[in-house]
């Protein structure tokens, strides 16, 4: 059932487009990496601020609010390039454990940011427990690192 969806995706015009020329995949892949740098950078800026490592003299509310805007831009770039990449190699990904690791971590990451982290961080950070802010920062960094690293590993294990 799920496999047939992946087979359909690879045979779709998007899948064919991604496979037709080797350069198409490579260019989309490079833009995906730019999105990764932007998303990862904004995650690190927020989480390292919450851990009091960087930007200590900028209010943490300002850092998380500003960085989150560009986090969303990064996420859109990644999704809009990630779906075509998947279409190009869908059946390969279906059989790749790192692909599924990445997808599970990605779904948890998105839910974590939009239903837990951001709603909480919109409050004045002074009213939140420092320990919970730090724990949240560690959880966020670990999650997004897992998403990115398992993503890189899809290519090694093809």
């Amino acid at each position, binding site marked *: 059932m799920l496999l047939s969806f992946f087979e359909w995706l690879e045979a779709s015009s998007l899948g064919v487009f991604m496979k037709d020329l*080797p*350069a198409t995949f*490579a*260019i989309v*892949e*490079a*833009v995906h*990496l*730019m999105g*990764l*740098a*932007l*998303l*990862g*950078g*904004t*995650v*690190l*800026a927020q989480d*390292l601020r919450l851990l009091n*490592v*960087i*930007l*200590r*003299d*900028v209010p943490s509310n*300002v*850092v998380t609010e*500003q*960085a989150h*805007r*560009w986090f969303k831009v990064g996420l859109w770039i990644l999704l809009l390039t990630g779906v075509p990449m998947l279409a190009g190699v869908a059946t390969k990904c279906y059989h790749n454990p790192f692909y599924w690791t990445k997808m599970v971590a990605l779904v948890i990451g998105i839910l974590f940011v939009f239903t837990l982290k951001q709603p909480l961080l919109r409050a004045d950070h002074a009213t939140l427990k420092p320990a919970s802010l730090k724990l949240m920062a560690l959880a966020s960094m670990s999650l997004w*690192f897992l998403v*990115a*690293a398992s993503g*890189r*590993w899809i290519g*090694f294990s093809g």
Partner: protein
Amino acid sequence: MNSALLQFATWLSERSFSVGLHESFYMYNWIETTHVMTLMLSFGMLAIVDLRMLGLAFANVPASKIAERLDKPMLIGFSIMFITGILLFSAIPVRTTQSLWFRIKVILLIAAAINAWLFRGYLLASKGSWDADAVAPRRARIAAGLSLALWCGVIMTGRFIAYDWFDCGGNNPAFIDWAAGCVAAE
């Protein structure tokens, strides 16, 4: 010069650590993953500084504060990039030396470094007059836009090194072989 570079690369490729990196099952992948993951620190911090100059992020925080505070994490990131990059080159020196994309990448890196160095001087000399402005002056915006474009180019050419489109010995136009510095086999 191309044959001298090739001679050096060949010598390097015969060192045991180069062979070890190349043949190890996981080491190369780990170094490559570290190289890619560190983009988040190096390019990530750089992008935030450049977006600040363009007035697109942290407009309510002084520009020099963002640039100065993110300088250290960014340089840590670029140091890791440089070290892992040298290791990746050492693992596959002969092919990389004659890679068109690697050569373009090095040129873009040098251009980005010159741009950053010039901008640093400008920022230190003039920040007092525009530090608190939401959008930096034109000259700072040009430097920031150029920096973003050059680093996107570095990421793209870096990724392309892995593809064998223009490898020496393939059926390339003479111009490509010249730019990649292919040395004819003796």
